[in-house]
């Protein structure tokens, strides 16, 4: 039997590092906004994780305002909080690219160094790859957003 997972790192502080815990204890942009033009919501019925996302973008499809309310585990909360910071000022097309990089990183695909750099703090979530069951927690808010903006780009 081959068991890749056997070699996994399991030090708790590596999973819940300071940055992640900080995001989860002090979630950024944790609010509703006025006059959002993009609204989306998702639930993962298995664990009850829930994401409510509101955005305002301008005519060039650039994000001007972000509000995200996320319920669930620390990983989902941290990922949502990071998302809210990362997408600010980006165009929908740029967000779509960021998602693809993030998704690839979480799915063991080869991603170039300079691409990964674009993810900023999101890189910290790479460790979650070793807990496959929780990859969904990382991706929930991102996937929710991308499914919604898909129609605009």
């Amino acid at each position, binding site marked *: 039997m081959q068991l890749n997972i056997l070699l996994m790192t*399991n030090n*708790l502080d590596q999973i*819940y590092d*300071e940055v992640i*815990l900080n995001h989860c204890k002090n979630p950024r942009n944790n609010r509703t906004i006025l006059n959002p033009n993009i609204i989306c919501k998702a639930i993962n*019925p298995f664990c*009850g994780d829930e994401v409510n996302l509101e955005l305002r973008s301008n005519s060039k499809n650039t994000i001007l305002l972000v509000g995200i309310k996320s319920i669930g*585990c620390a990983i989902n909360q941290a990922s949502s909080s990071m998302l809210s910071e990362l997408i600010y000022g980006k165009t929908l097309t740029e967000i779509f690219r960021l998602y693809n990089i993030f998704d690839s990183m979480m799915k063991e695909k080869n991603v170039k160094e300079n691409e990964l750099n674009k993810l900023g703090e999101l890189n910290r979530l790479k460790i979650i790859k070793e*807990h496959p069951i*929780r990859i969904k927690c990382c991706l929930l808010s991102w996937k929710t957003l991308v499914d919604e903006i898909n129609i605009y780009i």
Partner: protein
Amino acid sequence: MLDINKIRNDFPILSRKINGKPLIYFDNAATTQKPISVINSLTDFYTTYNSNVHRGVHTLSMQSTDLFEEARNRVAKFINSQRSESIIWTRNTTEGINLVANAWGKKNITPGDEIVVTAMEHHSNLVPWQILAETNKAKLVIIPINDDGTLNLNNIDTIINSKTKIVSVVHMSNSLGTINPIHELCEKAHKVGAKFLLDGAQSAPHMPINVKDYDCDFLVFSGHKMLGPTGIGVLYVKPDILENMEPFLTGGEMVLEVSYEKASWNELPMKFEAGTPNIADAIALGEAIIYLEKIGMEQIREHEIELTNYALNKFEKLNNLTLFGPLDSSIRGGIFSFHSEYIHPHDLGTFLDNEGIAIRTGHHCTMPLIRSLNIPATSRASFYIYNTKDEIDYFIQSLQNAIKYFTHDK
């Protein structure tokens, strides 16, 4: 009193380290660990007897058949079934309930009939009845629960009424630990002429089961939750019902005569066992039952009452979490579902895993129940014969550490 040290020595996996810490296995409601005698029975079978069963005239086939049918007899005795023909091998509890819903239900449920389950059913004892109710135009009726996780029987005589055709109830809830009043419910079902199915997935492993005493019409349980291997389960059917049930899966082994046009059915219980059965695992389940009976089902229940009282006492002292289910160990098994607003079950699961403790998090296949508690998911610790008070201590300590970890800044 169980000799826990001796018992623990029989379970090789318990000496495993998880993340450098000794394994504390508290996920027994999901599946239990296996003693060496059960593991050896698989090895023995495949190195010495392996053959297909029934109708073989060669030695291996006769020996396999003998062992296979001996295991069936053992199961029959274990639940006090008078006839071994009443024992049908299934893959698991889920298949057993599906078999009843199809082989008995499709024929006997007519438009307007009512099917009764409780609010604490596992999806496996809910979804098959939803489907049956839909296809046969019947109504599914739910017995509600009280805040303490016991069944609310206030309106039971309205719920179980002359339209009721079957009452299907979990014996011990896998989410709440509640042990339901089976005698009473079965009697009420029979009084209105309805059948009674007992979901013994969580009870058969943990307490004496007696189909004659309960007088239930169907009983289902899974081998893997009672020291047996995965892939084998049991459906007990009362003899007179068995005779009138249509087959479910069809094909080899379950037929008597086949022409190109039609087939007739083999004798019981083969009529319900199509294709090559899970021979080795059925025999290994027989071995698991030998192991359980050696300890004694009464003794196992006592041990778990002791652990339950101990854990209830510990949980009572924690004020940052909510424990679900009744607080009286005489109507509760060793299953502890709880929720804390300070920590998400997933994070707790990961934290405890880092301490070597295996618990389950989520809705435990009782999604409507968990939703009715207005929480997304619970954390669940569940005990078995090899668990100790020391393990409970360490678990409670780690639980408190976890809440600290996620609430205070580092």
